[in-house]
Structures are given as structure tokens and as C-alpha cells.
């Protein structure tokens, strides 16, 4: 059973972004909008929380940002980088283990 390191407990945001970008490239606003709509508002990003995180993930090589002109507007899109692809599976496992552990302890799934 994989354990959940302390940094992973704080890193729900990283998993959310990697999982979303695994489906295809998105720009920052779309990332925030999709996360909010797909979690029905439970997870929300604003400018202050999203972009510093995206930049850090880019620095670590997990995502790759690039400019693209769409509909006459230049947007910075992000796509999953190979290093990010490698990160995603272990992160999913760790979070799965974390939720299972919480569920066993506190019956989270039935709440």
C-alpha cells in the first residue's frame, strides 16, 4: 500500500491540474473553469492560487507552457510534459490510498 507523503497531502492542486491536462492542452482560465465545474465548485482556483502553481509545475518539467493564437487572441496553453505523465500515476495511487485510509477511519465515502 503506498504511503502519502506530507507534501502530497498539500498537493491536491497538482493532481487536479495534471489529471486535467492528461486529457489535452488547456490555458489557465480554462483549467480553473474546468476544475470548478467538474468538482461542482468544491475545488476552486483563482489567479493567485493557479498561476504560481502552474509556473512551479512548469519549472519542475511536469507541464509545458506555450503561446498559441486562438480567435485572434494569444493564449498561453499548458500541456502535460513527459515528467508530468510519469508523476500522474503515482499521485493517483497516493491519493487513492489517502482517501481509502480516511474512509476506513471516518467513513468519508458515506458522508
Amino acid at each position, binding site marked *: 500500500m503506498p504511503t502519502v*507523503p506530507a*507534501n*502530497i497531502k*498539500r*498537493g*491536491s*492542486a*497538482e493532481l*487536479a491540474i495534471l489529471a486535467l491536462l492528461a486529457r489535452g492542452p488547456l*490555458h*489557465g*482560465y480554462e483549467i*480553473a473553469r474546468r*476544475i470548478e465545474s467538474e468538482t461542482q465548485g*468544491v*475545488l*476552486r*482556483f*483563482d*489567479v*493567485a*492560487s*493557479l*498561476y*504560481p*502553481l502552474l*509556473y*512551479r509545475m512548469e*519549472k*519542475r*518539467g511536469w507541464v509545458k507552457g506555450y503561446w498559441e493564437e486562438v480567435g485572434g*487572441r*494569444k*493564449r*498561453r496553453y499548458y500541456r502535460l510534459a513527459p*515528467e508530468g505523465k510519469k*508523476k500522474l500515476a503515482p499521485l493517483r495511487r497516493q491519493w487513492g490510498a489517502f482517501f481509502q485510509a480516511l474512509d476506513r477511519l471516518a467513513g468519508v465515502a458515506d458522508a
Partner: protein
Amino acid sequence: MPDWHALLRARLGPLRLSPEGEAEVIAELAAHFEDDYRDREEAGEPARQAVHSTLAQVRDWKRLRHDLQSSKEDSMNQRVRALWLPGLFACFFCFSLLAMMIRAGLQPRFIWLAPAMGVAFYIPWFGALILVGALAGWWSRRAGGAVRERLQAALLPSLAMTILFTTLFFVALVFERHHPLGWMLVAWLVMLLAWAVLPGVGLLLGALPFLGSAPESRHAPAAQG
């Protein structure tokens, strides 16, 4: 449509980034604000109110400026922190340790490959290199280094020795007249083995525990609930 670039610049102030880096950040954030503003307008918010609501999502502009700067710092700074600082530390620590051990009277073990070709091995030093590799790997990971950077930082002393002995080999090729090429080649390979490969194994062993897990994301925020 409000000038989001100007509004952002006025609130964020100058960013401690390269001019291109700053322009990129402002352009990206301005596009985000513009989308947000459009959505609010489409949802029926009056223009003035929509501008206010859009800007209000940033509660602390100073904090945002700081977070943007630290997360967007150019990759050269990041490389210095994640590779060169821990790597140079490893080199310094590695060779200082050897100097101290020799000064303290540590005797090498010699392996004689030929009457005139002996290689000195400082066995306790190899053991200490595990600690040096571990420190360099840990430091690089703490600085957010990718696996490759952690590995490079830990192995930098071996790399330095490889470069040194290879340079000496080529210098010897030019100036050395007393020994045949085959002898010099063997000497070079033996020196590499003793002073680069074997120390590299020790350094690698130390760094191994820090290669498998993610860089520490001390600043990674959890998504807002």
C-alpha cells in the same frame, strides 16, 4: 473593455523578472482577467461591477507579486539552486574531506597494476562519499531539482575528476615521450576507475533515496475548497 494589462501593472508593480518574463506573466494574467470579466458580463453583471469582481479575486496583490516572482524566476536561478550549489558543495566537501583524512594520517591502500603503476585507494573516504551524495541529492531535491538535476549534483565530483584526468591524459599525449600510448591509456582508465567511477558509485548510493520521490513542494498550495 478595460485595459487589463494596465490594471495589472498598476496593482502588481514591477516584477523582479526579466522584461520578457514580466511581459509574459502580465499577458497571461490579463487574458485570464479578460475571460473572467467577459463571463461575468455575459452572466448579467454590470460592467463596473464585473471589473470590481474580477479584480477582487486577488485579495493580496503583494503576496501575488511575491508568489509570481518566486515561481517564475528564470530557470537559470533555479538551475543554480538545484544543481550548481549542491553540486559544488559536494565537490568541496568531497575533496576537503579527503584532504582532512590525509592530514589526519589516513594511509591509502595501493593496488599495483605494474611495477610503475600503482593506484591509491582511500577506503574510508569512499564510505564518506555516500554521505556526500546523500547531502547533495537531498539539497537538490529540496531546491526543487528534477531527478536528473539531483543525480548530476550528487555526481558532480566524479564528473570533475573525469574531466581532470581526461584533460591530463590529452596533455600527456602531447608532452609525454617516455611511455607508450597503450601504457598511458591503461593509466588513464585506471585513474578514472579509482578517482571517478568508484567515488561515483559511493555518491550514487548516497543519492539514491532522494532520486525516486518528487521534489519537495513546500510552497504548493492546496486547491481552495
